[in-house]
């Protein structure tokens, strides 16, 4: 390049994580003048922050690695060690403690200003800074690496020390609890409560503070740190500003867990644009990872690729692109394999472009993101007339029609869906059963997108979200109320429809309000309650797919009940005018609604006459069962506490019971034990790195064998039903155990020779999906106390007496 001599380097790579290291190694191998700038004193900061001995996975396992650096499954230490060796042997130009403060200039002559006034120039810049950001510092006099840490490597490294932990989030609390076992721990909280902590951590820390295992200063901060010799024998004296004035504490170590400075502001300051303000938005990138700023490339987690192997591949590819070499991405063969079902021998990139063009929903997605989406999706070519999914299945993927048509079989009617459209959004959004059976038409090619991939796309792309919402509203209205109404009228009604989001406990409408809208529950659930004899009585529970508020529309009267969100809930509302239009065009709708209203009024009156039932319903809702799909309930008036349910669970699940019969609250003899309730939108699925948690067509949430044991699901489950358990040792045939004493024998699930540090995997209730006859806990209960039920049947509770 002509201006090469004006710049110090051809490529400046920012961030020595997997992507940055791989890029630098490739640049070094190709003999390109380059520099790798790392703000911290060590490489791969995010992975350094993993806990000691953590098992690092090499997902997606089918994707080949292309990088001059080695990487394979192993412990954190082993992975880091091999990278350090690789960085050394590749002779890359790596600079530690070089934090980039700003990037200015343009392609051919970028200026990277480092903290500490130095400036580096480069023709191209590769941003590989990840998403973790830099840890927020205390910013007080005396803060130095020896006394202030921003992570805790291994709690077992400390004992008998005085340790100050600053922060009020989950990281601070978890560190404090882990260290308090063998150290004197002081927690410094800038606020007067722990508002950001997860429920489990909150309970644990408050208990530890109450028991004086941990001393906590609220409304306090660190003022200064003085290191060096002092009379206390501790390496430093920390001055705290507390609510009651300054306090001096002789201290061994300060751990600051104040979160991180998100990198987005820095990235935007470089001129890179994000499509929206969502926190997980991803910058718009071209197929060669170049951003909207020519010459600045983005790879790795910041570009939407959180997995190590992907980042490393991109590091290699981005350097090759800059060199002007055309490289087929590493996933090329995987995609070619996926597209083989299409028959035509078309180039992968062209097929991708065709797919994207054929389906308007995907036309708003950037090509890289679409490629990623296709990698996780499946291409189907079902025979005409075959079933795509069945009514009442619990699957939750979204299908797009690339060619041909499908037919939705709703009752006796068959509604066609055309090429380019999509379906399955109801199951995806509500987390409930499929509302109809879908049959494939002639020459039909479908793309099935998994739930997680689709949710990620919806969250990061407003246009995709809008299209899906609109389709959901139109189809929900059509299938619920107006299968025969002409499309033009339907469009008018949908235009007046609104989407509402309610946090748990929020009021949708109150008794006595003017009734002007009908709410169809899209996800979550609602409770209906009425004032009766000066107290509020819950009279019914409305799950996703059902609606409330029709009484107000039919009679045009005041609301007869208060409706609240039982859990985080979304509804679609139709206004009175729209509904009147529907009733005008849909014969029989008014009569149908009146009949349903009559039934509901009668049921409400019965419930009101039995306030106990309403109280039980409120109790169950307070336990978060509004988001359950199947829950274990024990009638304590029948339970003889024999724990045969737990034994049965352990015996059918490798020795670990997935239910705790005794734990959990009880109300009016209805006991909710600690056991999975198979939520509509499972919290455990949220941050599963290998995407190992799924819902089976029968509805149960299960953890697949590719669980990496990271424990995210255990922490994310608000109901504490997931445990980390050792992988059971295989049992030899029983005669070997009898004759030669080879273990483990029957009932002995622990292998005495097992490595106590071996990876534990997450285990939870799978509703005994492998067993005929249903859950073992229920079948083993001799007295009939244990049952598993769907929440729709809650209202039957309490009718006993």
């Amino acid at each position, binding site marked *: 390049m002509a201006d090469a001599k004006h710049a110090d380097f051809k490529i400046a790579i920012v961030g020595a994580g997997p992507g940055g290291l791989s890029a630098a190694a490739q640049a070094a191998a190709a003999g390109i003048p380059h520099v790798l700038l790392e703000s911290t004193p060590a490489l791969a900061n995010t992975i350094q922050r993993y806990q000691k001995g953590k098992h690092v996975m090499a997902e997606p396992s089918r994707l080949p690695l292309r990088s001059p650096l080695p990487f394979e499954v192993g412990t954190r230490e082993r992975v880091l060690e091999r990278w350090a060796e690789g960085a050394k042997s590749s002779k890359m130009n790596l600079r530690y403690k070089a934090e980039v403060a700003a990037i200015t200039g343009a392609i051919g002559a970028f200026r990277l200003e480092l903290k500490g006034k130095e400036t580096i120039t480069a023709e191209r810049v590769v941003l590989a800074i990840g998403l973790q950001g830099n840890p927020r510092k205390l910013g007080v006099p005396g803060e130095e690496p020896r006394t202030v840490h921003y992570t805790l490597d291994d709690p077992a490294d400390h004992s008998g020390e005085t340790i100050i932990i600053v922060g009020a989030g989950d990281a601070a609390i978890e560190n404090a609890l882990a260290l308090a076992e063998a150290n004197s721990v002081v927690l410094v909280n800038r606020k007067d409560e722990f508002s950001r902590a997860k429920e489990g951590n909150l309970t644990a820390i408050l208990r530890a503070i109450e*028991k004086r295992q941990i001393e906590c200063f609220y409304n306090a901060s660190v003022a200064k740190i003085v290191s060096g010799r002092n009379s206390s024998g501790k390496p430093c004296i920390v001055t705290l500003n507390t609510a009651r004035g300054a306090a001096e504490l002789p201290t061994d170590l300060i751990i600051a867990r104040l979160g991180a400075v998100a990198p987005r502001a820095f990235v935007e300051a470089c001129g890179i644009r994000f499509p929206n303000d969502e926190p997980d938005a991803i910058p718009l990138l071209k197929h060669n990872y170049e951003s909207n700023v020519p010459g600045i490339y983005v790879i790795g987690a910041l570009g939407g690729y959180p997995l190590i192997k992907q980042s490393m591949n991109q590091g290699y590819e981005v350097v090759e692109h800059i060199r002007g070499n055309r490289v087929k991405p590493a996933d090329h063969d995987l995609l070619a394999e996926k597209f083989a079902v299409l028959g035509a021998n078309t180039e992968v990139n062209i097929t991708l472009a065709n797919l994207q063009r054929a389906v308007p929903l995907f036309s708003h997605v950037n090509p890289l993101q679409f490629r990623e989406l296709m990698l996780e999706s499946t291409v189907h070519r079902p025979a005409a007339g075959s079933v795509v999914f069945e009514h009442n299945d619990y699957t939750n993927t979204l299908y797009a029609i690339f060619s041909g048509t499908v037919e939705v079989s709703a009752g006796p009617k068959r509604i066609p869906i055309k090429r380019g459209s999509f379906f399955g959004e109801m199951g995806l959004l509500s987390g409930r059963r499929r509302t109809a059976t879908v049959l494939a038409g002639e020459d039909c090619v479908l793309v099935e997108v998994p739930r997680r991939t689709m949710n990620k796309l919806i969250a990061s792309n407003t246009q995709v979200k809008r299209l899906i919402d609109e389709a959901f509203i139109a189809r929900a209205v059509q299938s619920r109320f107006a299968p025969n109404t002409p499309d033009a009228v339907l469009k008018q009604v949908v235009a007046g429809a609104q989407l509402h989001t309610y946090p748990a406990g929020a009021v949708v409408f109150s008794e006595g309000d003017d009734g002007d809208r009908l709410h169809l529950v899209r996800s979550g659930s609602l409770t209906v309650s009425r004032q009766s004899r000066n107290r509020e009585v819950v009279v019914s529970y409305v799950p996703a797919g059902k609606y409330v508020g029709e009484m107000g529309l039919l009679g045009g009267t005041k609301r007869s009940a208060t409706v609240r969100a039982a859990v985080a809930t979304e509804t679609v509302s139709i206004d009175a005018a729209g509904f009147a239009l529907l009733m005008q065009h849909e014969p029989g709708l008014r009569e149908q609604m009146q009949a349903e209203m009559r039934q509901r009024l009668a049921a409400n009156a*019965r419930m009101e006459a039995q306030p106990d039932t309403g109280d039980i319903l409120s109790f169950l809702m307070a336990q978060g069962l509004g988001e359950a799909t199947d829950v274990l*309930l024990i*009638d*304590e*008036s*029948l*339970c*003889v*506490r024999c724990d*045969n349910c737990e*034994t*049965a669970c352990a*015996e*059918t699940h490798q020795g670990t019971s997935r239910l705790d019969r*005794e*734990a959990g*609250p*009880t109300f009016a*003899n209805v006991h909710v034990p600690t056991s999975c309730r198979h939520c509509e939108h499972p919290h455990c699925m949220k941050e599963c790195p290998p995407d190992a948690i799924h819902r089976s067509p029968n509805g149960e949430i299960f953890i697949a064998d590719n669980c990496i044991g990271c424990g995210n699901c255990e922490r994310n489950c608000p109901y504490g039903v997931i445990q980390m358990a050792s992988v059971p040792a295989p049992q030899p045939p029983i005669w070997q155990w009898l004759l030669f004493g080879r273990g483990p024998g029957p009932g002995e699930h622990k292998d005495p020779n097992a490595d106590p540090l071996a990876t534990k995997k997450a285990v939870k209730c799978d509703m005994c999906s492998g*067993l*005929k*006859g249903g859950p*073992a806990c*229920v*079948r*083993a*209960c*001799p*007295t*009939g*106390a244990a*049952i598993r*039920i769907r929440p729709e*049947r809650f*209202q*039957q*509770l309490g*009718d*006993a007496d």
Partner: protein
Amino acid sequence: MQRLHFSFLEYRRSRFLWVAVLITVAALIAYARDDAGEPPSGGTTLGYALGILGALLILWLLAYGLRRRSYHASWTTAQGWLSAHVYLGLALVVIVTLHTGFQFGWNVHTFAYALLLLVVASGCWGVWAYLQLPRLITDARGGLTRADMAQQILELDRRALTLARAVSMDVHRWVSSAIEGARTSGGAWAQLRAKDMSTMVIDRNGTAASVPNVDQYTLTELLADLTSRASDAKLASQLQDLLALVSAKVTLMQRMRRDLRLQGLVEMWLLFHVPLSLALLAALIAHVFAVLYYW
């Protein structure tokens, strides 16, 4: 609207009650209409038939113990088996009574019959316990698990010791000996009576003596006495705090003993039912063997 939970007696609309009634009525009719030309006994044709039916029923009833532990069994439920076990067990009494032809004597046959009655009687006790006691257990627990109770007691002990140390060495000695001597359960009998076997050590005329400390009575008396004589306000208030901790512990320990007592009662009948059942099996074998041998 219908209920969600059904007890084992109501299982599937009590279908096994009807099965049992049917068998019983059939046996009674056959017995009433039997005209074998000899007095009714186990030796008539009907007697043999009833005997075989009874023996098969006994074996099947015993199999419940195995079924309850067959956790992979898929096409029946433990509840269904228990329901059938109870009703058919009751029907067995009628069948076997008819089998005897009311001919009793001091022999192995009548012994087996008596054992059967005891087994069924202990089973009835079990039915009563299963239906009546669970509610009482729930009430006794007051929403706490046993681990919660133990945890709370430990916590009260810890606070009491800290406070006692601040008061005086004597008080600390009392409190710690009362903690050491605290018992939530003794032997089986003490457990069933929920009797407090706690003790503590006091200083009596210069020698240490272990005395009963039922419901922490001794400790409470000692502390109350000291409180009434306390000269300064701080000491008095510390002692009163200590008394409050002790009485909180007494409440928890009573609750725990009541819970253990009920749990003991729920399980106690099994201590009779199971060994008697096995004895019955042995007696049944002896009975059948004797009948066939002396034929």
